[in-house]
Structure formats: structure tokens, C-alpha cells
């Protein structure tokens, strides 16, 4: 029993954080479509989860979880989860994935639109009939309004595609499900990072902003809201860490644990966004303040890979409708 990240796992996160601080500052969110992508690629970020025969490091999802949290913390744009986490599980044979020169988009089941599809060289579309791989050149995209300026949504149409994973006569679509689970957990890790950054920015503002001759952070009404955010994040994070272990270890409760992680992380991040906006007041309600990017990311990622409501429904059927067993 050693439920904490190793020094190596934390060191990887620290390296990613340094790169993102240098190459994905808030100003870059206004001026670049895909900041820090090349620098992350140079670091080997996109090969972390790929097997060695695909020029990767063969790490598990758990190993890269703190690093993924950093990508959320930096509000990093682009299909990071799709390219660095989903693709290695679903498309390990695609050449150049490890180098970051191939960018992958995913349209998960239950979602109408594909995020960041404008950047995708390859698009994976998962529907009831299974998963299909679409080349970027044969996709027609129509932009759709979304809440996140750095994570645009697209309606996707295509004429040619090839089946992935579970073809009707082939093996079952287990690999697609497992790949989506990985993407869901990675997104939950990003949400934890978004929530932590929202909390940090808001604490910083509440210490600096004075009214009635005192920092507004000295008022209990403000303190207690921020304490509630801290508690929500503190108890969402272990569910995310556990989901990564469950997916890596293919334990029987993996699907349930993934839903618990995504629901809790999404709710913590939306609470963090709500409180961040309330504590900032009118200045938070502007496009000028960088806070807007993190607010938007909390909302957009909460809707990605299953809303909290969808995951809560899954949890209800697994726990109340099924036989809840604890692992370990």
C-alpha cells in the first residue's frame, strides 16, 4: 500500500510544468492556437504512453497523471489528451505518433461535436456501431459555438473511413472502451489541475483586493467558499488517481472508478469556477482577465467524455443496481 506518486512521476510533472510556464503563459492563450506543443514533443511527451516498439516509453497512465494535471493547470490548448493518451492505446501503430507530428482528435460517444478537430491529422469517431478512423483530408468540419475559446467544437462529416477495434466479425470493442476510459481519466486529471489553478488565482486575488479597509479574503463568507473548493478538490483527486490505477491494472471496477473520477473532478472544477467568478466579482466577468480561460476550461472539460450527470447515472447503476465491491 503506497498511495502516493513516486519521485519519478512527480519529476516528470515538474518538467512539464516548467515547459508550460515558459511556453504556455496566459498571453499565449490569446495569440497561439497550439502553444508549447513543439516543446512538449521535444520532451517526448507524446510518446510517454506508447510502447517501446513505437518509439515510446511504455509508461502507464498512473505514471503520467501528475503531468496531465499540469496541462490542465496551464490551460494548455489542443487535443493533448487525445494525442498523448487515447491514441497510444487505440492507434499505437500509427507512425510518428511519438514525435508529436501527428495530431489526433476524438469524437467520443454521447457527444455531438469533436473538440480541436481543426488540428487533427487523424480523427477517431466512436459511435454505437464501433469506432472509425477518418483521415484529416477527408473530414469536413463546421465550427459550432462552444464555451471555451481555446477548445473549439466542430461538427464532423466524412465519406471515407476505416473501422477500428471491434469490427462486427472481429474481436470485441474492448480496446476502444479502454482507450476512452484512459481519455476520461486524463481529462479528469486536467480538471483537477484546472480547479487547483482556479483556487490559487482566486486566493491570490482575495489576498490582494481590499474593501472596507481589509483584504476580502479576511471575510468569513469568502473564506468558507474557498475552503469548500479546497475540500472538493482534495477529495476528488484521490478518485482520479485510483481510476488511473484501476485502468492500468484492468481491475473489474475500472469502469465504475472512471465514472467516479470524472464526475467528482468535473464537479470540483465547476465549483471552483463558480466560486472563482463570485470572489473576483465584476472583473472576473470580463474577457480582459485571464481567469476567463480557466473558467471556460472547467466548463468545457466537464462536458467532455461524459457529463457528470451521465457518469452519476452510470455510478447509480453500478453501485445501487449492481453489486458494489471495493478494490482492494
Amino acid at each position, binding site marked *: *500500500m*503506497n*498511495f*502516493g*506518486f*513516486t519521485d519519478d*512521476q512527480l519529476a516528470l510533472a515538474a518538467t512539464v510544468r516548467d515547459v508550460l510556464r515558459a511556453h504556455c503563459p496566459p498571453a499565449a492563450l490569446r495569440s497561439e492556437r497550439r502553444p508549447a506543443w513543439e516543446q512538449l514533443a521535444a520532451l517526448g511527451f507524446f510518446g510517454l504512453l506508447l510502447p517501446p516498439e513505437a518509439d515510446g516509453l511504455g509508461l502507464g497512465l*498512473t505514471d503520467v497523471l501528475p503531468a496531465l494535471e499540469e496541462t490542465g493547470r496551464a490551460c494548455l490548448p489542443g487535443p493533448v489528451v487525445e494525442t498523448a493518451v487515447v491514441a497510444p492505446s487505440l492507434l499505437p501503430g500509427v507512425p510518428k505518433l511519438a514525435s508529436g507530428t501527428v495530431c489526433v482528435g476524438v469524437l467520443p460517444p454521447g457527444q455531438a461535436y469533436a473538440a480541436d478537430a481543426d488540428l487533427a491529422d487523424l480523427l477517431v469517431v466512436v459511435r454505437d456501431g464501433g469506432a472509425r478512423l477518418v483521415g484529416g483530408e477527408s473530414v469536413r468540419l463546421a465550427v459550432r459555438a462552444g464555451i471555451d475559446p481555446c477548445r473549439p467544437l466542430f461538427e464532423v462529416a466524412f465519406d471515407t473511413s476505416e473501422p477500428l477495434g471491434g469490427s462486427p466479425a472481429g474481436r470485441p470493442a474492448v480496446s476502444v472502451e479502454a482507450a476512452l476510459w484512459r481519455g476520461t481519466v486524463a481529462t479528469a486529471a486536467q480538471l483537477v489541475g484546472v480547479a487547483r489553478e482556479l*483556487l490559487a488565482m482566486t*486566493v491570490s486575488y*482575495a*489576498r490582494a483586493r481590499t474593501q472596507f479597509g*481589509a*483584504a476580502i*479574503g*479576511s471575510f*468569513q463568507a*469568502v*473564506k*468558507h467558499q*474557498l*475552503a*469548500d473548493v*479546497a*475540500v472538493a478538490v*482534495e*477529495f*476528488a483527486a*484521490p*478518485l482520479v*488517481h*485510483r481510476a488511473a*490505477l484501476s485502468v492500468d491494472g484492468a481491475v473489474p471496477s475500472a469502469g465504475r472508478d472512471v465514472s*467516479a473520477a470524472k*464526475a*467528482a473532478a468535473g464537479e470540483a472544477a465547476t465549483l471552483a469556477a463558480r466560486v472563482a467568478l463570485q470572489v473576483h466579482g465584476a472583473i472576473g466577468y470580463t474577457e480582459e482577465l485571464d481567469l476567463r480561460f480557466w473558467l471556460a476550461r472547467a466548463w468545457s472539460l466537464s462536458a467532455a467524455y461524459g457529463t457528470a450527470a451521465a457518469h*452519476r*447515472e452510470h*455510478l*447509480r447503476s*453500478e*453501485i*445501487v*443496481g449492481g453489486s*458494489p465491491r*471495493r*478494490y*482492494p
Partner: protein
Amino acid sequence: MDLDFSPAERDFRAEVRDWLRTHVPGPLPSMDTPEGFAAHRAWEAELAGARLSVVSWPEEYGGRGASLIEWLIFEEEYWAAGAPARVTQNGIFLLAPSLMRFGTAEQRERWLPRMARGDDVWAQAWSEPEAGSDLAALTSRAEPVPGGWRLSGHKTWSSRAAHATHGFGLFRTSGTRHKGLTYFLFPLSEVGVRPIAQLDGLPGFAELHFDGVYVPESMVLGQAGEGWRIAMATTSSERGLTLRSPGRFLATADRLVALARDAADPALADRAARCWVEAEAYRLHTFGTARRIMAGDEIGSAASMGKIFWSELDLRMHALALELLGDRAQEWLDGFLFSLAGPIYAGTNEIQRNIVAERVLGLPR
């Protein structure tokens, strides 16, 4: 990072589970009645006979030297087995960690083995009528006399004091506020005890009146004037974790899910599933905390986040059980009333939120 129990930990779990299966009694009368207190004390003696009453203590005091992880395993099994509430809990979870860290060898040998067997049952005496959340405002005093001290003043909300044998608490020996407080042990036989009926009608706590109660020097824990530091020091280590282990909430969540299954109301089932996941989150978080403590870290004010989380979860679970059962909630009533106390005792949740905001997040006082 892993979530795997070692073979030794799995063996320990199996041993505890087997023992509890054959020894756990049926429901005992409330520990706040004379007969219930006696029954709970007898149960503590039976637990101690199997060296299961204080598994994490050193062997010389009646424990097994179990690790924090093993203690968490014990707690999971204990509550899952429906075993009785711990009448000794104020002593073994609040006083004992301080005794082990700050007590003399003589004090440890004198008090810990008796506590482990339930021979002595300890009541806490922190609050006073004018010092609740603001504990440092306390005014009870201890005056030095030859060979010891005389205690005078008025304590209240002293849990278990109606039937317990001994008490522990802070008394002013000099200074103001946090400075000049001293940590005393005392026999309740010398103290005026007025039992106070709680919401369930039973005297779960009491007022204590000290009218020049003499205690010898050997009843001072640590140095005179160091009481605040001693009382607070252990909150940042084991006690921050052991006040309420996840095991009891996991057991409650399992019972709640079984109720929701029978009720077949999707909205209530959704809330039950949410509680079950939150109990899991507390369990996982605690495994992480245990790892840090075993590595020598202090968890400090972060313990306040845990207190907020488990106390409000416990209340939500019991309130939901009452919603699910309507007027057939008899088996949940005691637990419901007890869960209502959770956000109040051991520092109200308003105080805990202040601590989180000021000491974890760094907001100004």
C-alpha cells in the same frame, strides 16, 4: 503508486474478520445508560483479551505495534462487522497519542494498559461555558500546592463523563490565551459531575465542577504551561487521521446502498451512490495520508479538510436513510442524532473552514 495490501496485511484482515465474526455481540444498550456502559466496558475487555482493542499501540501497553495501514484495516473490519461503538474512544484516540508522546515512562505504564482494557474510561474536558470554539478563552485554573495542584472551575460538554472514571483537559496555570495552559489528568470521583441529557434523552455528556480538586504532580502531562502545544501537537499526526477512520463511513454507505436498492427511487438512489463514492474518496484520501505520516510528514491543518468532509458526508448519509425509510427508520435514529453532532464537536465546521482558509490556503486572519 499502488493500492495493494501485503500478504501480512491480508492475513491480519482475515484474522480480525474471523475473530469479529464469532465474538461481536448483538446490539448493546446505549453506552450512556449504566447497564449499557457496563456492557460496552465488558466488550472492551473482551477485545483487549484478543489484543484487538488498540492494535496500533506498542505491545507493552496491550497493542500489536500494528502499522497505520493495519489499523485502517482493523477499523474497516470492525465497522463492517457491526461491532459496538467504542466507549473508550476519548482515551484511546485523544489522550493516548499525547500520553505516548509527552508522558513520562511512569505515566505511560500506569495509564495505557488500563485504558486498553477499559479498566479506566476517560472523558475529555476541553470546553467551558464561555470557551467553546474559542477554547483559549478558558478560565478553569490550577493553583500550585505542595506536591501537586488544586483544580477549580467549570467544564462542560464532557463526553462520557456521566459514567467514566477519569478525565483530561486544559487548566490555566499562568499567562493569557494559549500561553500558560497546562494539561491535567484527574479522577472523576473527585469532581462534581452533572450529567446532561442529549437529544436522545441520555446523558452523553456532563458538566464538571472543580472545587479545589487536588491532583498530585504526576497528573500533569508534559511541562506546566505547555498544555496548548501538547493538546494540538497530536492533531497534526495520528490523531488528525484517527479521530474518525473511513471504516465507519464505508459501513454506513454499504447499509445505505442496500436501503436505496430496496426503495427503487432513482433520485434517492443517485444520492446513495454519490455517498458511497464519497466514502470511497475518504478511504483513498486516508491511504494517502497514512503514507505521508508513515514517511514522517506532519499533516497539520490539512486534517481540517478531512473533518469537514467526513462529518458532512455522515450527516448526508443518515439524513438520506431517514428520507428512504420514513417512519420505519428506527435502526438509523441513533446514528442520525450522532451524525448531527459531527459538524459541531472536535472544532465546529465553521472553525475548520477558517483553519483551511487561513492555514492551508494562506488567506489573512
